[in-house]
């Protein structure tokens, strides 16, 4: 058991935070930032709003700004922050609904632009596609497919902080996955979106903030660089 001081950005009604609430909590050794928030909500201030569902790093809803780094609250053990003060704010680059709850609408608006669904002429087929475990898709995408749409990369991205149009790393990663998907044929449409001068991959300056922050260790910068290179020879994307 250890005492901590927790400073949380608070909204006065709804909307962006206007003040900082300071709370003292005593936490068990293994507790996470999410536990600290529940502790405060249950014993000190039950209006404190934050999001979570799975509490084991799978749903991607508990992303927030913890001691100046965007992270998942449920996967951040407080003792590992090496500080007796924990400062928590909402995820940057997204509008705040209340306290630590942000609207993910801008994130998903970008996500929708790259056509995340499968566009395949074999959608009504009763057979499964043959995708050998040795194919490029099977070898190169598994980790990139673990994205939990937590929005952390979007919040960490330096370009996102100045550009509303930029697709952001996660959406580009999704586009990459569909472009690599051996069944998918909407290649031209997607390339057009990610080739856009103001919104597409060209805005990425390889700051690596997204890659460093992604809780699923997805190498987003690698994805973006691959797409930039692929733009010369798009047909190479689907080569087995």
């Amino acid at each position, binding site marked *: 058991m250890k005492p901590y001081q927790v400073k949380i950005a608070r909204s006065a009604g709804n909307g962006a935070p206007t003040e900082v609430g300071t709370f003292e909590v005593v936490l068990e050794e293994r507790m996470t930032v999410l536990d600290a928030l529940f502790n405060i909500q249950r014993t000190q201030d039950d209006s404190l709003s934050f999001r979570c569902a799975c509490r084991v790093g799978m749903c991607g809803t508990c992303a927030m700004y913890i001691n100046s780094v965007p992270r998942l609250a449920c996967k951040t053990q407080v003792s590992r922050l090496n500080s007796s003060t924990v400062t928590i704010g909402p995820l940057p680059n997204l509008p705040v609904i209340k306290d630590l709850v942000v609207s993910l609408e801008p994130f998903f608006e970008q996500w929708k632009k790259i056509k995340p669904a499968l566009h395949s002429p074999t959608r009504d087929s009763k057979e499964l596609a043959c995708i050998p475990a040795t194919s490029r898709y099977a070898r190169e995408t598994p980790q990139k497919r673990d994205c939990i749409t937590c929005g952390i990369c979007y919040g960490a991205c330096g*370009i996102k902080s*100045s*550009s*509303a*149009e*930029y697709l952001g790393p996660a959406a580009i990663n999704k586009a990459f996955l569909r472009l690599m998907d051996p069944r998918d044929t909407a290649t031209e449409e997607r*390339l*057009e979106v990610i*080739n856009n*001068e*103001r919104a*597409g991959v*060209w*805005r990425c*300056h390889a700051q690596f903030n997204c890659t460093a922050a992604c809780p699923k260790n997805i190498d987003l910068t690698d994805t973006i660089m691959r797409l*930039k290179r692929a*733009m*010369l020879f798009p047909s190479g994307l689907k080569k087995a």
Partner: protein
Amino acid sequence: MPAYRNVLWWYVQRITGALLVVLLTLHFWVEHFMSKTLMRGDLTYAVILSRISNPVWQAIDIGFLLVALVHGLNGLRNIVLDYSRVGPRVAQAITVALVAVGLVWSWWGIEAFSKL
């Protein structure tokens, strides 16, 4: 291929960047260390004139100028594009202005050689 104009500019930016490393190093070496007269401290206009009348040096200098202009101005344009607050119309205008600046400066630099 208009669709991939962006990727060409992206490569151009990388290539000019790499060239700048070489050209800048060369430039420093030539201007500050290469010439014996310069090291002795009695550099004269005539010495420089003789160098820059050499067509090979002229080509290198003009190349350097163009590479630096392309890289710098395209870099500026990229910074502009990173900011949503600069709307598409303004960005377009800035692009035109940057191209104009580039043309004028290129002309200016190249034209200087004709006066030698």
